[in-house]
């Protein structure tokens, strides 16, 4: 019997308003060590939630606890930041910096004052993201995926206990994504890793737990297996789109994959994926909003 894991993230009734818009609306959540995936359409509140976990945004209402500390208190916030790694959704780099120099710069901000040990750590995290050989190159000469990996490297400095990643696999090719999954799953053994993504296959491959957010509220919170189970019996193949199906698309085999609340009695049922369950969960309205974000994956 294993001991229960300590709570590292706790949100109680957390709301965040931007003017009259509620980006998060009374969210209650707790997290422990392990990898948690955040799914949701654009504008669902994922980034707002991650920015709060990264201590760069305060809740308008409610209570937020991180690593057993209160980030509203300046001293405790600094203490949280000492154990935090954060990769924002969009990120630039200081002009003229190489990957090594940028990660070195971030390591200085993370209080690595000894030059030799700092440089060892910079080399280690660049190695983790597969950028060691390119570390001397100026960032502006690297590809989008390579720059994304440099951004990720800074988040990994010092093996943070809380790792907050907003769409970490954007721009990465399949090989790089697979390598990154290895890094993040290893980090999840000792740390709390929270990642927002539109890549449902990353969630399926990597996350123990999935949280689906829409309209600033949590619509699902549980294991990936349980989420997939909600779509069992609701995904089927047919030679043509089935009227009444919530979503339907032509697959590479020429047949149509249908997702809907009720399959026809003679339907050829197939094993659902995280994506099927996600589409079913959010319903038709959310599916319409999310089309831009997940359309390319659906078509594939």
């Amino acid at each position, binding site marked *: 019997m294993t001991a229960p894991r300590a709570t590292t993230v706790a949100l109680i009734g957390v709301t965040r308003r931007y003017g009259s818009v509620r980006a998060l609306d009374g969210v209650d959540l707790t997290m422990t060590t392990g990898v948690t995936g955040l799914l949701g359409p654009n504008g669902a509140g994922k980034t707002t939630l991650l920015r709060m976990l*990264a*201590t760069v945004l305060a809740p308008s209402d409610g209570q937020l606890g991180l690593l057993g500390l209160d980030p509203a208190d*300046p001293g405790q916030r*600094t203490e949280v*930041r000492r154990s935090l790694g954060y990769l924002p959704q969009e*990120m*630039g780099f200081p002009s003229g910096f190489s990957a090594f120099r940028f990660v070195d710069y971030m390591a200085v901000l993370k*209080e690595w004052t000894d030059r030799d040990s700092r440089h060892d750590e910079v080399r280690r995290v660049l190695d983790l993201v597969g950028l060691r050989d390119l570390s001397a190159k100026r960032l502006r000469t690297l590809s989008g995926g390579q720059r994304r990996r440099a951004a990720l490297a800074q988040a990994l400095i010092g093996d943070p206990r809380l790792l907050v990643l907003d769409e970490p696999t954007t721009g990465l090719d399949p090989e790089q994504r697979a390598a990154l999954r290895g890094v993040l799953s290893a980090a999840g053994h000792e740390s709390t890793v929270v990642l927002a993504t539109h890549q449902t296959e990353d969630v399926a491959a990597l996350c123990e737990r999935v949280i689906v957010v829409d309209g600033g509220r949590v619509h699902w919170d549980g294991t990936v297996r349980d989420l997939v189970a909600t779509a069992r019996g609701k995904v089927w193949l047919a030679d043509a789109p089935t009227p009444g199906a919530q979503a339907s698309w032509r697959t590479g085999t020429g047949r149509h994959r249908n997702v809907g609340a009720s399959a026809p009695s003679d339907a050829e049922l197939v094993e659902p994926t995280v994506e099927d369950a996600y589409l079913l969960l959010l319903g038709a309205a959310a599916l319409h909003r999310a089309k831009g974000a997940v359309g390319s994956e659906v078509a594939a």
Partner: protein
Amino acid sequence: MTTATSGWHADRALLDRYLRGEAGGALGSSVEAHLLRCETCRRRMQHLVDPAPLDLVWARLEDSLQSPRPRLLERLVRRVGVSDEDALLLAAAPSLRAGWLWGTAVALVFAALAAAEGGPHGASFFLVVAPLVPVAGVAVSYGPDIDEAFEPTLAAPYPSSRLLLLRALATLLTSIPLAALGGLLLPSHGWSDWSAATWLLPAVAGVTLTLAGATWVGTTRAGAAVAVAWLFVVAATSASPGTTAGPASLLAAAALPVYAAVTVAAAVVFQARSGRLALMGRNA
């Protein structure tokens, strides 16, 4: 290789002596030449060498290859005693990059040349424009609209207020000499030598006000507000029928205590509110 080798290979005792530097000149050179062409002996020697010093040498080599030569400004600040870490933090500031500094210098030269053509009022024009140079520099030294990697910077434990102050100080130290050089281009129209530097006090007051304002609205907006306020005061002074000296009256001795008082008050406000910078992310 005839006396201390087993066949055609160096034996353990000889390699040990070579590694300790005790093989002597001729024998040492022979072992070295042999090692260059003998893989077996090179492999044997690998097990006799402590890898730690080699790793250290390799790490230093990597460091020198991976760390590009620091830019001129970074080298200069290191020369005056700034630590490598602080120099790196300064190097990331947009207001300390060559493009900004060149732009500042060119703008000041044009202002000075325009002032030279404008007689006494032209000179005073330069002196009221000069304080805005460091204000603008501080406005673009830190913040979500300025720093390319602002959010991860904010999420790091390094104090935001210290980073802003460090960059503001460095901006002051680079823009003031530039503005002073511009001042040297001014013709003398009754100004005493020291009075060409009187813009320093409003400059420091403007910078401190920008820092204080940054705790409410960020550096860019605070800097813009200070600049607009200063230009409004200049315009009002020029248009005032009771003022014969025009904008120059803003730099008269009677005005200087006002700038000192503003500086002190703004510094107090910044000190009291600087903690708020730690939560001032994008749209925060």
